[in-house]
């Protein structure tokens, strides 16, 4: 009675599985503009209007978080709570990541979206740099006290110079932060979000900059004129030829050194933004010179100073790196060997951009990243799935004094491959691939064979064949026996119940052997199919209506208790088992007569 509902329930579950798999096969059923709008990084402008209304309630808190996070962060930086800063920066990053996932649902045009995302990323970068800069600033203050107490004027000068560099960097960061105001405030007002926290963060940022400026002025005045020298007659001066430079231009530094020593110095170390940039060499005209190519410097003011022998410092000079626009030109994509080949060039007004990363986007998703050559050109062959796609190239200019740029968009159609999926021409033409396929199939065949043949550790050996003394089947009959797979027939009569000591029946091995003998004998006499597949309960059920049923069922009950129930073979149980076994075997013998 219970079988039918179970079968019905199982059938229903299997049918549901098949329906779901069929839905997967007909993938358009699972693909709709609405679901498409939730896919990561997938831009479907047609889907936007449908999802705008009901998503705005979820988006508004995110916008508010993005406007409030910088305010709270700047305040924490101002309070010099660096553990708090690290925690809040991580939270800010998390919120920004949420923006990347949810921003598709905003009621914004694509350009507004890109602007807002860019401004937010820029703010995150600025505040991370501000956090690092102020942290270093505090360290310099501690070091300054220590060196002042020890009277180490060389290290004090070094700290003063690094402080100068940090000050200019923080001032640049402030200017960059102000540049983001327009986009951030406009977006906030569009969603009626409170923008006062963001505006307050700008004032707090200004205070941080003022603190740094004041601290640096005090430090410079305490250090005298800012240039410590190794001796009264020694002097090191530097000058920058062109103080405003762009990408790929040279910062040309020239200097002079006068020392009281007779030995003329050959090399003087030059530092840009407190990092050693190289060495200035003495030329024939007794002046030092150094050329530095601007490539990865951020746009803004940078500091330069020179140090000789760790003790003679030059004055600090500055130069300005300007941001140049870039042009990314991509040629129409071409098909080549099953891939889409895209090539183009990246350059500024004057020069190619070398070794710069260019991202190839297909329908807004990154399909490849390539670096430009020394001539600013790039070529990439990307594998794009069949169908209609829009591709373009993008230069993000993260670490360059350059504006980002993107190429013209191209619509391409990738045809379905001529051969079915998985049988691409060329795959099986490769001998290595054939070898891999053959090896894999061989290994899996061997694994399948051993799986079918394996026996669990501690399992019972194959069921023995027992024959009553008078009846011994012919070899043909034995071979026709429908035994389960994996149960080889052993020598008939080699294993019999006589080998079992009735006084020492063990529940694992001996009892199972008795059961196997009984099952096989019953199956043979009563013409049961597949004797090896009968469980004790099934054997009992099949024999219940027969004369031998009582004895067999008694035996199987005791067998189940001893083997499955774990009760073991007690004295009383043993008697009962042997009695019922003998009774059943005698009855089976009686059937023949």
């Amino acid at each position: 009675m219970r079988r039918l509902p179970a079968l019905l329930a199982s059938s229903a579950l299997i049918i549901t599985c098949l329906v779901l798999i069929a839905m997967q096969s007909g993938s358009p059923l699972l693909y709709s503009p609405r679901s498409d709008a939730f896919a990561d990084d997938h831009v479907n402008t047609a889907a936007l209007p449908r999802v705008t209304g009901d998503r705005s309630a979820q988006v508004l808190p995110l916008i508010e978080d993005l406007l409030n996070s910088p305010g709270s962060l700047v305040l924490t930086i101002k309070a010099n709570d660096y553990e708090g800063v690290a925690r809040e920066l991580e939270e800010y990053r998390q919120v920004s990541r949420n923006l990347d996932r949810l921003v598709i649902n905003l009621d914004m045009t694509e350009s507004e979206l890109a602007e807002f995302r860019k401004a937010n990323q820029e703010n995150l970068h600025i505040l991370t740099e501000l956090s690092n800069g102020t942290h270093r600033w505090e360290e310099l203050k501690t070091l300054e006290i220590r060196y002042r107490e020890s009277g180490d004027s060389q290290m004090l000068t070094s700290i003063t110079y690094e402080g100068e560099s940090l000050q200019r960097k923080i001032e640049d960061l402030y200017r960059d932060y102000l540049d983001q105001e327009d986009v951030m405030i406009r977006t906030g007002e569009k969603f009626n979000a409170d923008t006062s926290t963001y505006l307050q963060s700008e004032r707090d940022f200004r205070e941080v900059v003022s603190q740094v400026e004041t601290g640096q002025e005090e430090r410079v005045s305490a250090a005298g004129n800012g240039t410590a020298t190794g001796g009264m007659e020694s002097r090191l001066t530097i000058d920058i030829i062109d103080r405003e430079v762009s990408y790929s231009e040279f910062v040309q530094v020239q200097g002079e050194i006068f020392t009281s020593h007779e030995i003329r110095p050959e090399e003087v170390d030059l530092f840009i933004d407190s990092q050693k940039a190289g060495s200035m060499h003495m030329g024939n005209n007794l002046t030092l010179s150094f050329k530095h190519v601007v490539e990865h410097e951020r746009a803004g003011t940078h500091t330069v100073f020179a140090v000789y022998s760790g003790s003679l410092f030059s004055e600090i000079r500055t130069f300005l790196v300007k941001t140049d626009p870039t042009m990314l030109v991509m040629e129409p994509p071409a098909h080549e060997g099953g891939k889409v080949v895209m090539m183009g060039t990246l350059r500024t007004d004057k020069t190619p951009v070398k070794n710069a990363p260019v991202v190839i986007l297909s329908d807004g998703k990154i399909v490849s990243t390539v670096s430009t050559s020394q001539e600013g050109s790039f070529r990439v062959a990307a594998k794009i799935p069949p169908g209609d796609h829009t591709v373009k190239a993008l230069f993000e200019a993260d670490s360059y004094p350059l504006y980002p740029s993107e190429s013209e968009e191209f619509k391409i159609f990738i045809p379905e491959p001529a051969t079915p999926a998985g049988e691409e021409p060329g795959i099986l033409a490769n001998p290595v691939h054939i070898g891999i396929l053959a090896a894999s199939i061989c290994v899996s065949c061997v694994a399948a064979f051993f799986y079918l043949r394996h026996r669990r550790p501690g399992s019972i050996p194959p069921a023995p064949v027992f024959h009553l003394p008078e009846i011994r089947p012919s070899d043909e009959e034995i071979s026709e026996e429908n035994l389960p797979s994996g149960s080889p027939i052993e020598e008939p009569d080699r294993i019999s119940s006589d080998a079992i000591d009735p006084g020492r029946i063990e529940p694992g091995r001996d009892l199972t052997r008795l059961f196997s003998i009984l099952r096989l004998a019953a199956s043979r006499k009563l013409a049961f199919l597949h004797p090896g597949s009968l469980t004790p309960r099934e054997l009992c059920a099949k024999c219940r209506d027969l004369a031998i049923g009582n004895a067999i069922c008694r035996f199987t009950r005791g067998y189940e208790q001893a083997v499955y129930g774990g009760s073991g073979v007690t004295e009383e149980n043993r008697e009962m088992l042997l009695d019922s076994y003998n009774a059943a075997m005698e009855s089976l013998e009686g059937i023949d007569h």
Partner: protein
Amino acid sequence: MMKKHLAISALAAWVILVIGFMMLARTLDLEIFFVLWLIGILIIVELASDHTATPRYLSILKMVIASGVILFGVIVARKIMEILSQ
């Protein structure tokens, strides 16, 4: 409930669970589905097996699993070839 019905129900529940999670993750993949189904049926058959008796349906299921293992080998080979051809 009989062991056979328990095994069928458990396998169906496992398959439904796998498909459900795949749909939630929006990554319906027949190869992954096949591998997870194979793992499920392997575990269920091992749990349902007996020391003394191997019911007919379990013998058939074991043959199905052996075929699945061979198919799994083909899938692995295809994946390796895809990676090598990239």
